[in-house]
């Protein structure tokens, strides 16, 4: 089962890290085990996306009809689906879709949202009012409804689903970055920078941006987890990648038909999604604490 296979890897990883680190040993020891575990989980998922063939030799798309709906065994760690495809292989190969989707979503939200917040807070006046009221409008539309509408406008597909998820997170990024920038802008050192002759853009770039980004980055890590969840949601509803793409949400949706006879088809990808999201949340919390 998934938990067994992943704990094997987990048990090895930190040991290897300790041995290699040497002088870093003392520093690592101070890290919380939960945080280390989270980083390890994220590292494994990234490895799945980068080099899936290292983890599973089965073909994720082409099934073997004679081996359909087999329960988890040593041969098929997480069992097989109705077309005889190995579920573990499909989860491993699906990582790249979920991760790129989440990455695109967070990038869209981070760049567009943070720029809007930054401009609003630093220009102020009517520009700020206009931008922030627009953001309020975005916030007032239920997230899922907004995502579905955007996908219908843009067309189906992994990237479009990711963009839709990203657009719904713009509002949160804009609000957070605006409040941070407003806080930093009021500080003495920003005024001192203007006082020592800084132009508007120079001060913005040199002082305001670096000092207000910490919590925005922590929020981006948090958003990474929820983006995976939202992309899976869209996949489940059929708005994401089309079958036979092994996208995680789609896996759960497909497994739903066999929930009474083949529980592993929904449970395993579900657990993987939950664990990845939890790991991203844990990492985000540690980033937020750094300052």
């Amino acid at each position, binding site marked *: 089962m998934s938990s067994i296979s992943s704990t094997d890897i987990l048990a090895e990883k930190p040991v290897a890290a300790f041995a290699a680190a040497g002088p870093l040993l003392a520093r690592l020891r*101070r890290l919380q085990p939960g945080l280390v575990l989270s980083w390890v989980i994220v590292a494994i998922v990234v490895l799945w996306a980068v080099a899936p063939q290292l983890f599973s030799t089965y073909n994720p798309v082409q099934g073997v009809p004679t081996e359909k709906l087999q329960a988890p065994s040593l041969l098929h760690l997480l069992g097989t689906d109705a077309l005889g495809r190995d579920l573990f292989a499909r989860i491993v190969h699906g990582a790249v879709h979920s991760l790129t989707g989440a990455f695109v979503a967070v990038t869209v939200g981070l760049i567009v949202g943070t720029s809007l917040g930054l401009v609003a807070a630093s220009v102020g006046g009517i520009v700020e009012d206009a931008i922030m009221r627009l953001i309020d409008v975005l916030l007032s539309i239920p997230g899922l409804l907004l995502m579905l509408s955007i996908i219908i406008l843009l067309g189906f597909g992994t990237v479009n689903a990711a963009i839709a998820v990203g657009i719904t997170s713009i509002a949160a990024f804009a609000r957070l970055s605006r409040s941070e920038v407003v806080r930093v802008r009021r*500080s*003495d*050192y920003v*005024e*001192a*920078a*203007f*006082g*020592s*002759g*800084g*132009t508007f853009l*120079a001060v913005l770039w*040199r*002082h305001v941006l*670096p*000092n207000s980004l910490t919590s925005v980055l922590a929020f981006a890590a948090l958003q990474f987890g929820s983006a995976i969840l939202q992309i899976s949601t869209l996949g489940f509803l059929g708005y994401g990648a089309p079958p036979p793409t092994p996208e995680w949400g789609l896996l759960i949706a497909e497994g739903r038909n066999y929930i009474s006879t083949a529980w592993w088809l929904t449970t395993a990808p579900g657990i993987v999604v939950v664990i990845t999201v939890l790991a991203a949340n844990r990492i985000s919390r540690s980033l937020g604490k750094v300052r």
Partner: protein
Amino acid sequence: MAALLSVENLVVSYSENDNRHRVVHDVSFTVEPGEVVALVGESGSGKTTTAQAVIGLLAENGRIEQGAIRLNGEEISRWSGKRLDTIRGRQISLIPQDPTSSLNPVKTIGAQVGEILRIHGERDSKAVDARVIELLARVGLSDPELRARQYPHELSGGMKQRVLIAIAIALKPQLIIADEPTSALDVTVQRRILDLIDDLRRESGTAVLLVTHDLGVAADRADRIVVLQHGRIQETGDARSLLGAPQSEYARQLLADAPSLSKAGFRAARPQAGNDNAIVVEGLVQDFSIEGRSSFRAVDGVSFSVRRGTTHALVGESGSGKTTTVRDVVGLGRPTAGRVEIGGTDIATLKGDDLRQLRRRIQLVYQNPFSSLDPRQTVFGIVEEPLLNYTRLPAFERAAKVLGLLGRVGLPESLHRRRPRALSGGQRQRVAIARALVLDPEVLVLDEAVSALDVTVQAQILKLLDELQRELGLTYLFVSHDLAVVRQISDTVSVLQNGRQVESGTVEQVFAHPQSAYTRELIDAIPGQRSHAVA
């Protein structure tokens, strides 16, 4: 009869990242009933830690390693928090440092004063209410019935400190620990609060352990003084003899550095760098509009002029309009009316890049060196930045200039790559001064630039400013609430009250023959004068 409080060989340590380091070493002193003992030292000297240990309120990572704390002969240093609760408030009470953050903002004053009575067993709510009113009246609050119904934000800083004192004396404790009770308050308020503590002590024979960084305050109020440095006692003694003839090196230095106690008179007149005025302010008025209400006039008709190469001081309490005036002078604010000229240029006419160019000639040093430096820049980067903004010097010339200036303000090379977080308050203020000077300005505006610093560091910075002025012919506009400092370093002074200028003239004139009652009150409130009278 044993001493009321005796601290014997106290050792306190704090743990940080698995290692413990000691901050109080082998401290012993006693407090007799009805006596005022002052713990004096700069920040980091362990004075607050010692006081916290006495009342069992050390921070979570703090621990008493050795020693005994005896209250009426009973050893209390190993007591549990629960057991200490029985004596806290009843036998020992605390007046905290910062009145603005020490009251619960969502409870009325009456409820908070009544709380200590209820905690210690008073059940009759009528009796509690009556006693609360009595206490509030006792600490000199006008209209105590109204105050009891008000919330902390409706009271001024001095009034809040009175409320905290009311809480501290509610159960007539034998010992009051006053941890910098007046540091956050204006001088005139400070004097009234200290007078109040004195009166209460005289009436009920309460002993006071006064923690302060201000030797002037200790000189005025204490019977005995304990001087601490780096967690060790440097000197203990009767206040008068300690101040008259300090034995230890450190006590001598503290005494020399305390502006309020220094015997030095006014400084010698500056050789004027020119005959013209570096700053001219005429009829300055600044209104702030408050949403939904009429506008508020922060500065109302302030006029002064400063000759090139001299120091002009703006003096007043908080809310007097000093900072607003200064912001208009450096061009960060826009005056509602009046004229500000810097070296002959009227800054009200300047806009955009002209205003930016003017800022080369007038630089501001902020009150708080902890917030005026970007936490992400290195010391070198902070000082280099103004040069990047205005000049196109090649990198090596720029570096030479920055290094020269950092050396001039006394920052060793080992600190240049550090970030502000790794510097002390005094070092940070030196960085801020270097940043202000790197463009060779004509005028330096110092907004309470030494108020946040310990006396010894303050004396060093003032000396540095004095040297720089002499070498570079700088003009200073020095804002302060501390008249003792102003007396030391300024040539001329303006006194502000509620945005109006109540007095203006040379320092000698104003200090020797104050024309307004307010100036006289300010001068009388300088601590440390009682000991002068004695000496």
